[in-house]
């Protein structure tokens, strides 16, 4: 800080000069005046920090000058130099707000002390001023912050999608946001600060909340629950709600409840279930329709060929058309049978039968078709297996489906350099199950196909497959207390294993 500037006023020039000299050597800056009038002029033009003035001067005296200065700046430090015993002037000077007095003749030490005191007063005042301004700024900032926060909180509550209702310790409603008004159907102006919990909620719910607070003193948050609110105007609204008990310094100050209107969610949930069901039905139906259309194509084609045969008296045509018709009638029969088998619970009809006979029969049946598609059908059967207790229909149906799929997979395979083969194996496994294995080196399945295997009507064969084959197979095997295992790798092939309980003979009737 630059040096203090001191104004010295005295009509005796010598004193002024002496004081000036001594103060300057103490590091002060000085300005001087030799009369009250001049003092005032200099005060105005130089604005010194401290004024030291003699009282007795011709014209404007020190008291007058003091008064004038204080009028300009009431805080200004003015030190008065008085003669001995001049009590009256001293008192007047005090009344005018002089800061300090020193006696004449002015001794350096006394002046120094007075100046120090004045300086520290100035310093303190300055500090105080600083504090006050920063304090004012801080208060202004804090006020703004509080205003913003409470505004924010108010907005938060008003715009919340949850209905928010809060009660004070006497269960009077103090917060009631627009969503609450919508939910409960009572206007905010009729509720806030007017109603109690008993007026707003139905008695059951009101009692519930009150008891919660009473009974579970330590618990402050009550988790979300679902309930139906019966509003006063007779609506029933499904809600999810939670409540919090509010404490301040461990003292109960109120409660707040949050409600979420579930009407829309419930409606959507219902719609979703409905549309999922429809989608599943749709997929099933469209798969089925596709297949039926394919049969229809066959039947129409067949009957046209028969017509042509009749017209032209062509037995060849008649025969071929009739074959087509019969084949497609069988497809309808099989489809109907599959649908029935799938939809009805069926107990396996156990009897003593030879699984190998069934396999041989199937191989005979399919060999020709497989060969025409360049697929080799081979078998490797465990000789130790003979007659078993099983449902021959189940075995026949399951293997027919699986072998057909295996042949199809070979036909579908992109890699025509492979020698395609479907191998049928049997053996008894370590868990005493009879295991039928059908392995192909066809196209295999990717992850997606593998996962969809047992969904109704899933078929990669377009209209040429029902997508019921494995579904029915799986069900029959399950009913037979068996399991089906599948290993597959795209481009390499698939292995299907059907395992059924191995029972060699009829159980002896218990007598």
């Amino acid at each position, binding site marked *: 800080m630059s040096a203090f500037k001191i104004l010295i006023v005295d009509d005796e020039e010598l004193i002024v000069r002496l004081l000036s000299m001594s103060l300057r050597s103490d590091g002060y800056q000085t300005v001087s005046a030799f009369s009250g009038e001049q003092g005032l002029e200099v005060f105005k033009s130089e604005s010194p920090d401290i004024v030291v003035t003699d009282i007795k001067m011709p014209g404007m005296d020190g008291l007058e000058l003091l008064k004038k200065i204080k009028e300009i700046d009431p805080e200004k430090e003015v030190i008065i130099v008085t003669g001995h015993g001049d009590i009256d002037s001293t008192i007047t000077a005090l009344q005018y707000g002089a800061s300090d007095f020193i006696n004449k003749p002015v001794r350096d030490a006394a002046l120094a002390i007075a100046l120090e005191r004045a300086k520290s007063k100035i310093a303190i005042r300055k500090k105080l001023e600083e504090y006050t301004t920063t304090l004012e700024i801080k208060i202004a900032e804090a006020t703004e912050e509080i205003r913003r926060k409470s505004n924010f909180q108010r907005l938060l509550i008003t715009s919340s999608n949850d209905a928010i209702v809060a009660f004070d310790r006497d269960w009077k409603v103090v917060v009631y946001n627009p969503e609450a008004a919508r939910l409960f159907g009572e206007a905010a102006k009729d509720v806030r600060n007017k109603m109690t919990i008993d007026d707003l909620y139905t008695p059951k719910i009101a009692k519930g909340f009150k008891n919660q607070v009473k009974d579970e003193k330590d618990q402050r948050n009550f988790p979300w629950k679902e309930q139906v609110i019966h509003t006063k105007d007779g609506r029933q609204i499904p809600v999810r709600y939670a409540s919090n008990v509010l404490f301040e310094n461990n003292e109960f100050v109120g409660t707040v409840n949050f409600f979420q209107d579930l009407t829309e969610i419930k409606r959507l949930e219902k719609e979703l279930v409905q549309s999922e069901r429809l989608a599943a039905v749709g997929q099933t139906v469209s798969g089925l329709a596709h297949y039926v259309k394919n049969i229809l*194509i066959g039947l*129409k*084609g067949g009957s046209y*060929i028969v017509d042509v045969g009749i017209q032209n008296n062509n037995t060849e045509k008649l025969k071929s*058309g009739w074959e087509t018709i019969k084949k497609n009638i069988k497809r309808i029969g099989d489809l109907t049978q599959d649908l029935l088998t799938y939809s009805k619970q069926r107990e396996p009809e156990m009897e003593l039968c030879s699984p190998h006979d069934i396999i041989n029969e199937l191989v005979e049946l399919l060999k020709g078709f497989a060969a025409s598609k360049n697929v080799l059908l081979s078998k490797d059967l465990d000789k130790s297996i003979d007659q078993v207790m099983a449902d021959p229909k189940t075995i026949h149906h399951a293997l027919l489906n699986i072998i057909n799929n295996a042949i199809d997979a070979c*036909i579908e395979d*992109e890699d025509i350099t492979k020698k395609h083969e479907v191998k049928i194996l049997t053996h008894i496994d370590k868990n005493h199950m009879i295991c039928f294995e059908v392995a192909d080196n066809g196209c295999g399945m990717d992850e997606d196909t593998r996962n969809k295997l047992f969904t109704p009507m899933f078929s990669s064969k377009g209209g040429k497959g029902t997508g019921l084959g494995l579904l029915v197979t799986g069900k029959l095997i399950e009913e037979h207390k068996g399991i089906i295992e599948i290993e597959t790798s795209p481009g390499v092939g698939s292995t299907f294993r059907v395992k059924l309980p191995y029972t060699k003979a009829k159980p002896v009737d218990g007598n």
Partner: protein
Amino acid sequence: MSKKVLVVDDDPDVRSFVVTVLEENQYIPLIAQDGVEGLEKIEKEKPDLVILDVLMPRGSGIRLYHHLKSHEQFKALPIIMFTGIALRSFLKSQKVLDEFQGAEVPKPDIYLEKPVDPEVLAAAVRKKLG
């Protein structure tokens, strides 16, 4: 002289139906069970028209279609698409898109969705061959 029409379809029922329709309308039918056999017959027998089922095992129908549409010497060969799915599904089918690798799938001359009445099929053939 009678014109030759090649039927490429993996379904024997469909083949004998189409063959009968062709015979009844004084065309000479040729048959192939898949796309590979189809191309062989086209090269050897030089049919005047191909009736093609695109959705056959191994995607061979689509491949044959692609082959015919992208080779100069076959571009003039008319094709009747004869298949179980709607044209819209055909043009959007992933297998078809994959085969054409992003290039625009050319629309077939005539697209017939099964089942088709014999008269309609005959008319379609006649339209192309007269």
